[in-house]
């Protein structure tokens, strides 16, 4: 299990690098479910970003403050309501969408509060996940979905195709998209071969 976690960390780091390459210098950034603040600290350091995190876990929050981040204790669903329109250049929903109850509401609110929204999530239609389900009859466990069914924080399992459909239906414009394998970008049939996806979306 520990080797698996190590590989995930590498994968996440490449996530962070892509996000850092998306945002412009000095951008105002809101990270929903910012965890221990690793990404925000990276953006602050690399891009002189002005960052605000929202997180529920007290221990993770303390780590954020230790990193010099501003972080609010609150849940994501109610965390956005009071921000005026376009308060941030970027709102980040990285590796959190699969865990939130009102996903549509949070995405819509993020699009209101942020000029651009970065959404990152594990692709449930990755070939290994499909094979596991079809041939082994088991819930997939892989680098991007590293949990057993009884301990997973994930409450929804979405795929790259699902997300693209969703954006089409909700008239959301996909500005940029990134597909990631274990530690390399995927260009061919991403819904089959990408473990993680990153989308930059805006309101049409």
């Amino acid at each position: 299990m520990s080797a698996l976690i190590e590989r995930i960390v590498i994968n996440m780091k490449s996530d962070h690098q892509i996000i850092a390459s998306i945002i412009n210098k000095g951008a105002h950034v809101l990270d929903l479910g910012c965890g221990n603040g690793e990404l925000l600290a990276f953006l602050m350091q690399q891009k002189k970003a002005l960052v605000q995190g929202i997180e529920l876990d007290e221990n993770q929050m303390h780590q954020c403050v230790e990193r010099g981040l501003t972080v609010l204790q609150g849940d994501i669903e109610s965390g956005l309501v009071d921000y005026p329109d376009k308060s941030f250049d970027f709102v980040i929903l990285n590796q959190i969408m699969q865990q939130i109850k009102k996903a549509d509401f949070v995405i819509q609110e993020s699009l209101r509060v942020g000029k651009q929204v970065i959404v990152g999530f594990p692709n449930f239609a990755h070939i290994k996940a499909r094979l596991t389900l079809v041939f082994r009859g088991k819930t997939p466990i892989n680098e991007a979905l590293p949990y057993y069914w009884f301990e997973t924080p994930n409450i929804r399992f979405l795929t790259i195709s699902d997300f693209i459909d969703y954006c089409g239906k909700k008239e959301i414009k996909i500005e940029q998209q990134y597909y990631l394998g274990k530690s390399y970008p995927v260009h061919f049939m991403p819904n089959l071969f990408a473990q993680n996806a990153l989308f930059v979306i805006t309101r049409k």
Partner: protein
Amino acid sequence: MKKNSVGVVTPQYFTFAEPPDTLQLKSGRSVGPVTLAYEAYGKLNARKSNAILVCHALSGDAHAAGFHDGDAAAGWWDDMIGPGKALDTNLYYVICSNVIGGCKGSTGPSSINPETGKPYALDFPMITIADMVEAERYLIDFFGIEKLLCVIGGSMGGMQALQWASAYPERIIAAIPIATALKHSPQQIAFDEVIRQSIMADPDWRGGYYYEHGQPEKGLAVARMIGHITFMSDQSMEEKFSRKLKNDNLSFQFIDDFEVEGYLRYRGYNFVKRFDANSYLYITKAMDYFDLSGDKFMPIVKKTAVRFLVISFKSDWLYPTHQSQEIVRLLKRKHAYTTYFDLISTYGHDAFLIEIEDETRLIKNFLANVSPD
């Protein structure tokens, strides 16, 4: 002497609004001259950019840290202020003043009215939190400090921190309001009114003009007892007193059988020795009048650069978590970069004076990233 103490400190006094000047108050009335008692710890740097203003709560005073000569008890926030502590006096110049309307060296109802040569008593004008901050602003000007690095306080001290941010956002870099609210709820006003009524119901109060005769002791003691109940939590009272008896048996008389009764009586009667009854009336009223909700907060500012650390405590039912969350909601509307923690504690409202470890961790890290530039 305790470890990491600022050592022996001497209260200082600053007087302003001397004739022909007066301090204009929110009530429309004015007062002068005004004296503020204050203490300061650490060293003000050459650029005067490392000053932190500590604002005290209802019954606090300027003596926040260290020891008065010959005194065994340290200042009221000594655990937070000193070398290496949350407000590190090796780094910061920490100032704390007694509020206007108080009775610990600053001008208040027990001060001598220069017009009559007698204590003001109820001739003293009504004071608001904004007036307290205005007086503090005079003190900060006197120091020649253009910008405070931070204003921090719990309870009524937190109200002052919010008032500073609202009235003088350009003069502070950060604000740390702890266990406080943008306005008193009807429940909070109700407690304050019962507190005031218990003082005013004591015949020794004499309509406020009691100074020749001594304090309305019974009324003030009861007022403080009510206060102490609201500062604790159900759980902290259970842990501290449970139903423990002072003696082994019930007395079947109206005496303080239970430890909690003894505690309240002790606290109440000790308070009489150190606090002026009229000041308690004036200051509770100031807290009830305080209202920075909605558009009243930072009225002319659309976006603020002031950085906030808002802290509440889960067991605080006097200034409950939702009131701090209301502050956070308002700060979001002002695009303020805000850190907010709802800390775990069983101590109720008193937690801001007791939960030193968590507060220290937070405040130290927060301040480390607040820079004057």
